[in-house]
């Protein structure tokens, strides 16, 4: 018995889901900092070159594969060549690891959202730092896997409950939810941006963000940072795009959808830079510190610098100003994160359901969410931030880059890129041709190999972030090895899918 594949309710539902998956925490807390420290406005040039030569081509490939094969990543690769199924499972194993710690980061956001109601993080820089140390940084050693924070457990449970509720019924509900979760953070970023632009010192902040340093374009590090940002930001190599596109009927456009997703993602990143740096410019002015000293990225920006900056805001909304902007900021982070998180889970659920269609979706989703919740508890212990940092570094810099590389090799050099290109062109609004084949066969693999090799060289020279080697082996290499092994085991396992 062959089940009829579920479909997106409309094209906007698919596009919004894809944009929601791409637009995540990194757009707000990574892009602005990377841009500012790699040439400011000049960074836009390598960034858009990277979007056109790697981001969009690889996105078209993943969309095209899912749509043409009408299957999630493992199923699509299996239908292409039996022995390539492993790539899909490896991608999903890495995605599973990523969504486990991503949900932990969202648990921190829930905690800070609660703290914003009463400005519990304190009024002074020291108090904010102490709250961060108490809530997130904590022991800071990998051996301290104990003392789980119950507030964070509640946040983690909320996150997984939301993910389960959104995806257990299938993409119809996802299509409805993204109509709220995609525009909401954009509106909230606009609110932060408008407020930020009114502040003294905002101009200095924006100058730091956008003033071009052209000499940086001669540095390979700038170009690698741009390619890295594009690769990680567009959810490439996760198997998400393949799963999402598998719910599109054949002979419908995917190439223009890839352009829309990529430009939408770039627009949110570009806009977020103003929201972040206008406030940081003001904060720098208030504290008499150079902007480059207060500027930060990632967890440091979201949970340390931004709450301090919020504390320093003038009381435009009376005595509740800090509470309101604190809540707006953390609701923005939560709404940015949730659709990226559930897209990762959807990719895994679709992969398992495609291979074992007799197992019901709610059961797969429930089992995965409970398992991921339990595994995620490790990131809420005193050693949580350390393990999160290590697992994040290895999953992204090695796991995903490797998936992207083998995808390009598998399609470009083994399975043949022309048949997939022809399938994509059947419904294409923007036809793919030589430029796409050159990007997939040569440019993207060359860049991904360069990223892998440079990271390996860096790793050999100095242990990552000065962590003990045993922790790097367990949280880094072992996780990658386990993901690869799971991929092999699942490939060798016989499913119940009816092969047409």
């Amino acid at each position, binding site marked *: 018995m062959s089940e009829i594949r579920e479909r997106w309710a409309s094209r906007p539902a698919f596009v919004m889901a894809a944009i929601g998956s791409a637009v995540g925490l990194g757009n707000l807390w990574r892009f602005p900092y990377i841009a500012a420290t790699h040439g*400011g406005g000049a960074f*836009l040039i390598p960034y858009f070159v990277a979007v056109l030569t790697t981001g969009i081509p690889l996105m078209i490939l993943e969309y095209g594969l899912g749509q043409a094969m009408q299957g999630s990543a493992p199923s699509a690769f299996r239908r292409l060549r039996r022995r390539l199924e492993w790539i899909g499972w490896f991608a999903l194993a890495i995605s599973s690891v990523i969504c486990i710690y991503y949900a932990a980061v969202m648990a921190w956001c829930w905690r800070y959202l609660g703290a914003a109601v009463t400005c519990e993080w304190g009024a002074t820089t020291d108090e904010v730092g102490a709250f961060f140390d108490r809530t997130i940084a904590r022991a800071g050693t990998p051996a301290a896997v104990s003392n789980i924070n119950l507030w964070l457990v509640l946040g983690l449970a909320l996150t997984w409950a939301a993910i389960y509720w959104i995806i257990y019924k299938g993409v119809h509900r996802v299509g409805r939810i993204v109509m709220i979760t995609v525009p909401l953070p954009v509106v909230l970023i606009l609110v932060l941006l408008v407020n930020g632009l009114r502040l003294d010192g905002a101009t200095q902040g*924006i100058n730091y963000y*956008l*003033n071009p340093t052209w000499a940086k374009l001669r540095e390979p590090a700038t170009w690698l940072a741009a390619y890295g940002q594009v690769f990680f930001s567009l959810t490439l190599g996760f198997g998400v795009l393949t799963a999402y596109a598998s719910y599109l009927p054949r002979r419908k*456009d995917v190439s223009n959808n890839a352009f829309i997703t990529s430009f939408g993602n770039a627009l949110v990143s*570009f806009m977020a830079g103003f929201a972040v740096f206008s406030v940081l410019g003001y904060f720098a002015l208030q504290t008499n510190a150079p902007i480059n000293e207060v500027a930060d990225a990632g967890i440091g920006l979201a949970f340390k610098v931004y709450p301090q900056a919020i504390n320093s805001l003038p009381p435009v909304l009376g005595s509740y100003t800090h509470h309101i902007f604190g809540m707006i900021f953390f609701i923005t982070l939560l709404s940015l994160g949730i659709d990226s998180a559930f897209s990762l889970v959807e990719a895994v659920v679709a992969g398992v359901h495609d291979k074992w269609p007799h197992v019901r979706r709610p059961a797969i989703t429930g089992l995965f969410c409970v398992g991921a919740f339990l595994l995620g508890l490790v990131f809420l212990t005193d050693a949580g931030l350390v393990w999160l940092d290590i697992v994040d570094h290895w999953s992204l810099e090695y796991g995903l880059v490797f998936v992207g590389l083998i995808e390009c090799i598998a399609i470009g050099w083994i399975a043949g890129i022309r048949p997939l290109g022809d399938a994509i062109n059947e419904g294409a*609004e*923007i036809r793919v041709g030589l430029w796409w084949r050159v990007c997939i066969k040569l440019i993207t693999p060359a860049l991904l190999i360069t990223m892998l090799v440079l990271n390996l060289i860096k790793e050999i020279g100095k242990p990552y972030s000065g962590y003990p080697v045993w922790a790097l082996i367990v949280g880094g290499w072992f996780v990658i090895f386990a993901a690869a092994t799971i991929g092999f085991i699942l490939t060798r396992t016989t499913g119940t899918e009816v092969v047409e």
Partner: protein
Amino acid sequence: MTTGAWIMLVIGTLITVGGLSICIGIAFAHERRNRAAVAEQPAETSEPS
């Protein structure tokens, strides 16, 4: 703001907003053409042979 920052602000806005608008425009144009093609089809098939 410095002149360089202004220039990059304009370039960044043009590429992101412009790129997105063009792609959405292409999508709308195709949708309209497809709908028009579907609307024409029954008229052709209903002609007496």
